[in-house]
């Protein structure tokens, strides 16, 4: 009889493994991921910028001095105004901007703007301005603006005298909303289809895979152009927005579905899933408790990569005039105003949304990279 209990003399050191159960705080997978992510500088910076961008989009009406449609007829194509802290006589004062004195070139009749110290506009915090609606309530306080309603255009104005800075903040709402809708819908559809395909196998799998191949082989640009052709000329911009988002979703879910199908097939044959079958778990439980939780990191990383793709796609198509339609404002729509060289040369500040696009794409990619590294189960640091 060599029972381990009898085997050990009382004073012998216990080499049984039971004595070595880890003590101290227990870290779950997600806690480990957070720890690892916090050590990743690029990822953290990306995440902070992403948060700022999302925050800006949410509170755009409060942060922007004007609404996107407000036209300042006295300021057509005015250049950006510098925020100054030093007054004419050299002393430090409250922040202010300078208005412009218009000069006309007598030969070309071109109007040029010169900052003029006679038209000083003081900046104030929490100034009263135009009414806007937020969460169903009407407010009129804006984070900053010219005191007593004096005009301030940090990033200049466009050809109709609309404030570029305000429009850019409002534009981030539509652009990000588009990204999030597409991301969310594509994740849900992709996960559902991918899991079904991988888990069912057999004929279902074959059919779904052929559908995915068809979707992936579809030329996407003609589809967007067709949308413009199909919709009536005076269609509701909201309808165009939804149709546009729907088409992007239709084209994007296939990638995720295919990736997840492969993962499901791999996880399905791992022993913990077979053990669940052995205790009698049904398909729903196996998918919901065993398969999807083990793919969640993959889905999250995919989502953070698809968002910048949609931002780029939106701005590209709206720039061409096939995406989001006026009077909705998005970064792409704003860029649509500079599609001819003349306006580009005379008002380069209209390219400001490009900066935001680059910044947000880089930030979301950095966030995605950071998450991917942090969720890598084989990371050994």
């Amino acid at each position, binding site marked *: 009889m060599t029972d381990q209990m009898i085997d050990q003399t009382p004073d012998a050191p216990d080499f049984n493994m039971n004595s070595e159960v*880890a003590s101290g705080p227990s870290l779950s997978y997600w806690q480990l991921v957070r720890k690892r992510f916090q050590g990743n500088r690029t990822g953290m910076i990306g995440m902070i910028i992403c948060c700022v961008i999302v925050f800006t989009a949410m509170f755009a009406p409060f942060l922007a001095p004007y609404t996107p449609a407000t036209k300042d007829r006295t300021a057509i194509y005015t250049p950006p105004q510098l925020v100054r802290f030093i007054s004419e006589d050299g002393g430090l004062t409250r922040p202010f901007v300078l208005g412009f004195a218009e000069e006309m070139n007598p030969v070309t009749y071109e109007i040029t703007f010169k900052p003029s110290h006679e038209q000083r506009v003081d900046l104030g915090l929490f100034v009263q301005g135009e009414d806007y609606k937020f969460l169903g309530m009407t407010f009129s306080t804006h984070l900053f603006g010219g005191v007593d309603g004096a005009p301030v255009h940090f990033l200049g104005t466009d050809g109709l005298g609309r404030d570029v800075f305000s429009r850019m903040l409002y534009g981030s709402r539509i652009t990000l909303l588009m990204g999030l809708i597409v991301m969310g819908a594509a994740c849900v559809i992709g996960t559902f289809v991918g899991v079904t395909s991988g888990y069912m196998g057999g004929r279902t799998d074959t059919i779904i895979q052929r559908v995915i191949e068809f979707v992936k082989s579809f030329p996407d640009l003609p589809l967007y152009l067709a949308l413009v052709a199909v919709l009536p000329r005076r269609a509701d911009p909201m309808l165009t927005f939804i149709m546009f988002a729907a088409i992007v979703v239709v084209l994007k879910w296939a990638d995720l579905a295919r990736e997840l199908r492969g993962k499901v097939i791999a996880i399905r044959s791992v022993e913990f899933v077979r053990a669940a079958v052995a205790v009698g778990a049904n398909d729903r439980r196996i998918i919901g408790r065993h398969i999807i939780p083990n793919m969640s990191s993959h889905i999250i990383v995919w989502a953070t990569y698809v968002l910048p793709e949609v931002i780029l796609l939106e701005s590209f198509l709206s720039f061409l005039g096939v995406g989001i339609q006026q009077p909705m404002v998005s970064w792409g729509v704003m860029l649509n105003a500079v599609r001819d060289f003349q306006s580009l040369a005379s008002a380069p500040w209209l390219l400001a949304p490009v900066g935001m696009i680059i910044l947000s794409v880089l930030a979301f990619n950095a966030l995605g990279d950071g998450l991917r590294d942090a969720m890598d189960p084989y990371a050994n*640091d």
Partner: protein
Amino acid sequence: MQMTDPLLSVENAKISFRTVVGQVDAVKNVSYEVRRGETLAVVGESGSGKSVTARAVMGMLAPNAIVGEDTKIMFDGEDLSEWPELKLQDIRGRRIAMIFQEPLTSLNPVYKIGDQVGEIITAHRKISKADLRKEVVRLLDEVQLPDPETRFSQYPHEMSGGQRQRVMIAMALANNPDLLIADEPTTALDVTVQAEILSLLKDLQKKHGMAVVLITHDLTVVSKVSDTVVVMRQGEVVERGNTQEVFENPQHPYTKHLINSEPKGHPDPLPENAEPVLSGSHMSISFMLKAGGFFNPKLTELKAVNDISATIHKGETLGIVGESGSGKTTLAMAMIKLGNYQKGEITFQGNRIDQLSRKDMQPYRTRMQVVFQDPFSSLNPRMIIRQILEEGLIVNNIGGSAEARDALVRQALDDVHMPHSALDRFPHEFSGGQRQRLAIARAIVLSPEFILLDEPTSALDLSIQAQIIDLLRELRRKRDLSYLFISHDLKVVRALCHNVIVMQRGQVVEMGPTEQVLTDPKTAYTRRLVDAAFNVVA
């Protein structure tokens, strides 16, 4: 053996790793040395730091490793720990060679064998193409690969695990190294192949006069092959000395524990006239393999299980042994309806179950359970232990209330000798042996009458194997279980099984009471398995 200066001496090695949860000390103050013509065995369980120390010698540590300041690695009179990477590159593969554990992944699948062995040679010396080929063939011949000329232009997937390990050895020998580090060279191989590889290593060492550092957790290997031994535990050396002396008179309690942890003992006597629990008769399972091209498809039938009958009685442990690919897992999984099933009759406690659908099997699931081979993949990493153990109770509506389930789960933990503090932890916080206990707890919490054990010990260190076997025996007695035990290790089978079935290529080559089969094997195949298990190196 003449007394010379040591070829390699590791002095005061201290290695730690930066991790998210802080610094982990893997090796604390380890020293050992090995002379030319000598074999040093470094023994210890996984996580004892034995491989990490060897990798430090090769300068092949992971980037998050921190090597202590006092660490000195003296090789032939020079301190390697101060050498730059480029200088180390020159010495690796030329003067120090290494063999890894996993022959299936340590060869590059897209290059031919000849090219891979040749690369080691051309990396260190200039040689003409014709001579290179001759040299490679000579090496392949030296490691006793049959038909080395043909092997030269074969790809790794065309060879078996043992043959690949021979190729790895040929690569290690390519430049006549002074020192060979073998990191668990036989662990991933079948027992019969293990013996052949070990005797090959021993012959080659004699012939070339190399120093060999053999890293292993298997003490039988140590006693047969090595001159001196170092026993490591938790990053420290607990005992060192001449192999024979250490084995005859171990000083440290841990060494004694290791030496005593060979699976031993015999199964409890079988009750007479026990009724059958699970029986299968004339079971056959085959897979259709596709061969030929798209326009000329050919289907060949692979008979994984060919007309086999087996019965497990109440209280009995039936062993199925055989090399990998012999169909033992396919057969067993089919018997509990977890795998493909085709022909034959399966009866569980008097009820025919072979034709039942997955849904109809539901009532039987609590009565037949399974423990898998790999404890690292058999527990869902996203669930805490409580959720893992409770799952079967929830899906089968056992226990009713949360309190009742909690009591059952705690009882199961007690039975596998795990503390209740394990309940709120995640699987990755446990060692391999602990996870295997938890996997067993998941099976017994449902109070089954039959458990299929699919090589439950083969992924574990030897000393832990013995504990798991003791545990299984104890549980069988306490809960009146019947086991179907799959293994390729006859030592474990002898300690646990009443009867045994020996399988080869889907067929039964021998069956009967364990003692009878092991002491008086009727077929050459069984004899080979027995020799491999009980007489490691001739």
